[in-house]
């Protein structure tokens, strides 16, 4: 184990290198580009025996990963923002083809207007695509999650998206324990036999058109159609609710680092209000909770590491006894609510004494979310919770007041 002062992008690259990724295909986009620049340098110098394929778009990057993974290789890509949006068609294909890819998303806002800075609208917009989605709190978790991602993906035959905040993590250097290759090799053996077989002696048509209804295959076996395959996919994702924490524990045993599971919690036991977030905001929220505790305000933090599958049982359990959850979404389903707030409300619905769920949107397009602003939002939410407010309009943290604009 070596401690390196590295950015989130470099941590992602280290994760891919330690996972012995065999094929990397990517197209540059801020803030992801340094991931692939780093991998490219290692491939060029011979430090990483992988095939690096420069492509003409993100759509092609995912297409190459689909081809490589279909042939049995361990494949990796990374993107951000509009690159992810452009890749979307193939994101669905990779998931439906049940390919165990890992993709890093250095989270960035979507245009228009053009903006290169952080929020989580890009990955949140594809959360229904059938990938496991894991959000990282810091650079250590980026490295750890990329490696763990392959073990989860290859166990369940689903792709894993490793999301981390652009610039806040992607470009911020901090100490990261880089485990020894031998420890990672013991944790992550070479990729097991793929579901699909590519063998001229035993030809298959992989991904053919599937009819609406079940039909018999060439061997006379009755096979499910689109609906049955989708149901199986859903069930595989639900299995991730067990696989993600188990793999986290196995990683802890292999590297001696604390395991990371579906959620992270901080001082929730006697909390009246919980700050709920995903990504680097979880780290900063723990600082805010500690500061508010010094003021005598019982604040805790629930970090959502695994957004898909959504850890409904875990959040119900962890939020028991809390008056209200203030969800800090860095994305919005326009015309409704933040994605994590929506999921949390659904998870808590019908639970006896369920906490109120207050939605807040913050950080869009890189707007700085300061500890002070978070503390202020938490104080207001606690006051509302104590007054018994069940619902509140969406709060915009840090939004310029109309009178300031003139």
């Amino acid at each position, binding site marked *: 184990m070596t401690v390196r002062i590295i950015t989130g992008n470099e941590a992602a690259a280290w994760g891919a290198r330690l996972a012995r990724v065999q094929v990397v295909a990517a197209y540059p986009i801020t803030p992801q580009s340094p991931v692939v620049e780093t991998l490219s340098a290692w491939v060029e110098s011979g430090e990483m025996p992988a095939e690096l394929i420069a492509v003409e778009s993100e759509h092609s990057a995912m297409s190459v990963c689909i081809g490589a993974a279909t042939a049995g290789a361990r494949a990796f890509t990374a993107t951000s923002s509009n690159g992810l949006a452009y890749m979307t068609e193939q994101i669905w294909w990779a998931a439906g083809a049940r390919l165990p890819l890992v993709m890093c998303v250095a989270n960035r806002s979507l245009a*228009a*207007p*053009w903006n290169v800075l952080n929020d989580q609208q890009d990955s949140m917009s594809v959360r229904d695509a059938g990938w496991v989605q894991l959000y990282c709190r810091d650079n250590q978790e980026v490295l750890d999650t990329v490696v763990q991602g392959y073990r989860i993906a290859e166990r369940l035959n689903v792709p894993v998206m490793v999301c981390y905040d652009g610039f806040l993590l992607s470009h911020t250097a901090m100490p990261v324990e880089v485990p020894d290759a031998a420890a990672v090799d013991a944790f992550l053996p070479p990729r097991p036999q793929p579901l699909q077989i590519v063998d001229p002696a035993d030809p298959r048509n992989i991904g053919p058109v599937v009819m609406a209804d079940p039909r018999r295959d060439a061997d006379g076996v009755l096979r499910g159609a689109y609906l049955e395959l989708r149901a199986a996919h859903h069930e595989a994702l639900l299995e991730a609710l067990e696989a993600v924490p188990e793999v986290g524990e196995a990683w802890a045993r292999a590297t001696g680092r604390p395991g990371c599971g579906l959620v992270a919690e901080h001082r929730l036991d006697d909390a009246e209000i919980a700050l709920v977030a995903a990504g680097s905001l979880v780290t900063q929220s723990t600082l805010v909770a500690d500061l508010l505790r010094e003021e005598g305000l019982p604040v805790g933090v629930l970090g959502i590491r695994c957004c898909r599958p959504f850890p409904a049982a875990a959040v119900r359990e962890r939020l028991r006894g809390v008056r209200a959850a203030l969800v800090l979404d860095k994305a919005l389903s326009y015309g409704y609510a933040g994605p994590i707030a929506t999921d949390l409300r659904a998870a808590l619905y019908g639970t006896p004494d369920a906490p109120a769920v207050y939605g807040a949107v913050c950080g869009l397009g890189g707007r700085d979310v300061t500890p002070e602003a978070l503390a202020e939002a938490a104080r207001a939410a606690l006051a509302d919770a104590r007054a018994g407010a069940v619902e509140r309009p969406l709060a915009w943290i840090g939004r310029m007041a109309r009178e300031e*604009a003139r």
Partner: protein
Amino acid sequence: MDASDLIAMSKPARGEAGRTGDWRSARPVVDASACIAATQDRVTCQICWAHCPDACIEQGAPPAVDLEFCKGCGICADVCPAHAIAMVPEAEHGVCEAAEGGTR
């Protein structure tokens, strides 16, 4: 409702990108005795004016550089067929006596 509150828009304006003259580490200095336009006393040549990416050169004999906005890129000096433009560093640097003694 003001459309600029609904969509992102900007318009071309002097200094829209800020006072870009602050970016400069070297400034273009025109030698009028070599400048083709200046020696002919007519607004000829103007190749520097045409190439300036920041449009901060005004036509003339010689052309005039607006140092408030010139970033010091040096393209004008590079394209001048008469080599009449020199890029002059904004500051001269040296080493103090303490450091001249060798390793610490």
